[in-house]
């Protein structure tokens, strides 16, 4: 049973309660549209940076919302702030501002510095 237990592997699972949602809260309080994302993936599909790297803005937003900040931090610098994602977002989210605010939040929070 040790090997085939029903627990989730610690390194794989999102421990929602233990995760720090300060970055998400920082963004949501300044850009309320952050909460409107329906994870359609339009932003990632049109993303210039995402065409050449593994960067996904959709995934970045969900990681931040779940408090998976370590993973988000690695990705945040890949955005070139071109703003194409804003043009395609069906929910009208100012996605570029989400990225800008995320960078700002990571910078202010020394524990999570970029």
């Amino acid at each position, binding site marked *: 049973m040790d090997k085939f237990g029903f627990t*989730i592997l610690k390194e*794989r*699972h*999102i*421990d*929602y*309660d233990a995760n720090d949602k300060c970055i998400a809260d920082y963004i*949501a309080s300044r850009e*309320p*549209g952050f*909460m*409107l994302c*329906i*994870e359609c993936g339009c932003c990632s599909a049109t993303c210039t940076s995402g065409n050449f790297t593994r960067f996904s803005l*959709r*995934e970045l937003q*969900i*990681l931040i*919302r*779940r408090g*998976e900040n370590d993973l988000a931090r690695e990705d945040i610098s890949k955005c070139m702030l071109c703003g194409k994602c804003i043009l395609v977002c069906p*929910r009208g989210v100012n996605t570029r501002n989400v990225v800008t605010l995320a960078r700002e939040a990571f910078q202010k929070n020394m524990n999570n510095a970029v």
Partner: protein
Amino acid sequence: MPEMKDTVVIVGGGSAGMETAGQLARAGFIVTIIEREEITGGHVNDWYHLFPDRRDSLEVIEYLNRQINNGNITLLTGKTVENINKNNETFFVSTNDGDEISADAVVMATGFDLFRSERKEEYGYGIYDNVITAADLEALFRKGKVARVDGEIPQKVGLVHCVGSRDEKVGNVYCSKLCCVTAVKQAMEIRKHIPDARVFCFYMDMRMGGALYEELYRESQEKYGINYIRGKVSEVSENISNRLVIKVEDTLAGRPLRMELDLLVLMAGMEMSEGGAGIARSSGLKTGENRFFAPFDHHFGSNRSNIPGLFYAGTCTAPMNITETISHARAAAADVIDYLRNGNR
């Protein structure tokens, strides 16, 4: 001059039955409603506010009561129908207390049963006190206090979509259609009752197909900060501090997620009512794969059955919201009139 055919029996006194009865009574027909419970109104009695505009359900009950307040309507409560027989052109409806009522046409408005959530044992309904159903939550709203069984006000609440719907394991492959928007509405109402609460909806797809549903979904995100996590909760347990622990695959992050919750609400789906299914068996009415009454024709005859003169109204044919039920009930009345006046089946 041929004898006028003008008597109709309606089986079920919920919103569909009451609306059909009102329409037929105003058109001059003599209507008998047979209702199993002591009061009419059906499931609407168990609801607090209705989507999409959060109207108080009591307003709907008042409207329906006005519909059946008509000298042409006889209401029989506390009776169930056991069998419906057609002999020549007359129906004989026999009830559990040995009565037999004759009629020229019959409308089945037997409605739905809520899925019994204890059948999804992994969610712990009936095992853990703080796992409740959407209907239980409506009762708490009506009482004016959303609290756990121990009286504590929940700060973290989860809502599980598709409980008993889209699930072959319980034999229900269909979508109950109303639970998604009910969850959105309830999530917002939880925040109204408990402003600091964090609310999470666990869904497979957000099916916001009705008028103003998508707008409500957006409002729930924008104004109420409801969190939506795509993934069906796989299991629920209780930890030593009496919190519920859920496991779910966050399918958009592509990783499993665990979370503690104070209260978990199961969005139980709709099933063919046991009463309706019993009459289908005893009286030769066709049912579909989803066990609801099978309409004679999906496009042109959703109120007609396989027996001429016997019609369907409302959720005995498929999950419907109140708006759709009222429309379907009016269409049933039109079909009954066409049958009794013009002989069209």
